[in-house]
């Protein structure tokens, strides 16, 4: 199975690899997946208190090229969005943008889960209730 150009590009030049201070109140961290399943994604957002805008986003991913590309793309999309706008990122948009084949759809779901987990971490840190999300059930 050949990879799409966009997956290859993200794999070769991943955007926003790194670590934010997970202890900071402005930083939300989402860690999803499991080593036994072959993918683990950690996605972090740094939110501007005043505006609610995501100032920075970083990721680290253990997984195949599609998992790396999905998380790299997610960080790009997150930057500049408000937290509420970020909640609207749908995994199928990632699938379309990266031309992921059906067997790799779970990588995009994982990225969406990571975004939501990071947002919930940010919310609970700042005295807000964690949001409940429906299971996509594609993994």
């Amino acid at each position: 199975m050949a990879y799409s150009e966009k997956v290859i590009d993200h794999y070769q030049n991943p955007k926003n690899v790194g670590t934010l201070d997970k202890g900071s109140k402005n930083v939300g961290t989402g860690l999803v997946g499991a080593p036994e399943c072959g993918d683990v994604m950690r996605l972090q957002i740094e939110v501007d208190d005043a505006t609610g805008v995501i100032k920075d986003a970083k990721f680290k991913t253990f997984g195949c090229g599609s998992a790396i590309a999905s998380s790299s793309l997610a960080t790009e999309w997150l930057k500049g969005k408000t937290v509420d706008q970020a909640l609207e990122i749908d995994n199928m948009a990632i699938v379309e943008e990266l031309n992921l084949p059906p067997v790799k759809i779970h990588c995009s779901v994982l990225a969406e889960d990571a975004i939501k987990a990071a947002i919930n971490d940010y919310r609970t840190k700042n005295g807000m209730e964690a949001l409940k999300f429906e299971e996509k059930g594609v993994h």
Partner: protein
Amino acid sequence: MLKLPVYLDNNATTPMDPRVLEAMTPYFLEHFGNAASRNHPFGWEAEEAVDYAREQVAKLIGADPKEIIFTSGATEADNLAIKGVYEMYASKGNHIITCVTEHKAVLDTCKHIERIGGEVTYLPVKDDGLIDMAELEAAIKPTTILIAIMYANNEVGVIQPVQEISALAKKRGILFFTDATQAVGKIPVDVQKDGIDLAAFSAHKMYGPKGIGALYVRRKNPRVKVTAQMDGGGHERGMRSGTLNVPGIVGFGKACELARLEMADEAKRLSSLRDKLENALLEIEEAYVNGNKEHRLPHVSNISFKYVEGEGLLMGFNKAIALSSGSACTSASLEPSYVLKALGLGDDLAHSSLRFGLGRFTTEEQIDYTIDQIRTTVLKLREMSPLWEMYKEGIDLNTIEWAHH
């Protein structure tokens, strides 16, 4: 001169040796006859060519030419051996012993035997990939008719104690079948010394063409018979009907002859290249060899690079280096390698493995290039790996509650 791309997936298949192709070519064109045509020169030429190839194949494994049954490949030979023995020896018993790291062609055939009323014991393997002889002995029942243990494993290359197994089988009056696909042509396999009753192997793993393989069936001490699984014209002493694949058989014969003549030198060259590759890669932190290193094919190495996922790793260089991984992502099943799991590796380490299969046309420059590419990619991906970061921070990954999906 470095020749790209580098092909290191020789356990999957080997390229044809040009000398094999050269031997085959006339049998597609001027000598196209059916080896079963007894009334004209076209048939005679084909039959003569098959007879000669049968000798070449037999000689490689120390067999008599009459003991070679040509099949479409090792999968068919595995099926014929197991199903054929099960049917032929039904009056003696219905129990077969095999092991969990066998190729699917053996495991799925055994599953079929269970569905039709047979009983199969799947022996576990030790952490080094070898079976435990005491467990094998303990598994034998009065109804055991066949022990089916592979000669060498396709994923980790470990070589099973074939002579011990056959001695035990002989003592207990049980037939011994070995899937020798990865071993024949690579290391000395001798059906007499090794005490083998039936053996499956294939041409395309030893620089011959795809679509042709053989089942060795012993004719003396004891005389072994298998029930045909393909009915028809009664070819191959009635054990495998179907018009003989003459060009394929000629190529198989030539490949066997080349292997017999060149095996010793080739094994020496490849094991030294393999060791160079392995030693260099083991200098990378948290890299581990899977399987027994003493009892192993000379051209094979299987290494796990912890905290890096196999398919992601392959993607770093897969346009230039062809390799395979035990990672789930590279298989249709989305499960990591069952062989590595049977060796006691956790799913995470199985996901992180690469399988190297060197071959006749692998050069030292290619190995140097491979070492360099893999080292660079592993280090790059670890910089991107949250697991590596945790490991470096001293966090025990087993203490984390992962969201399993």
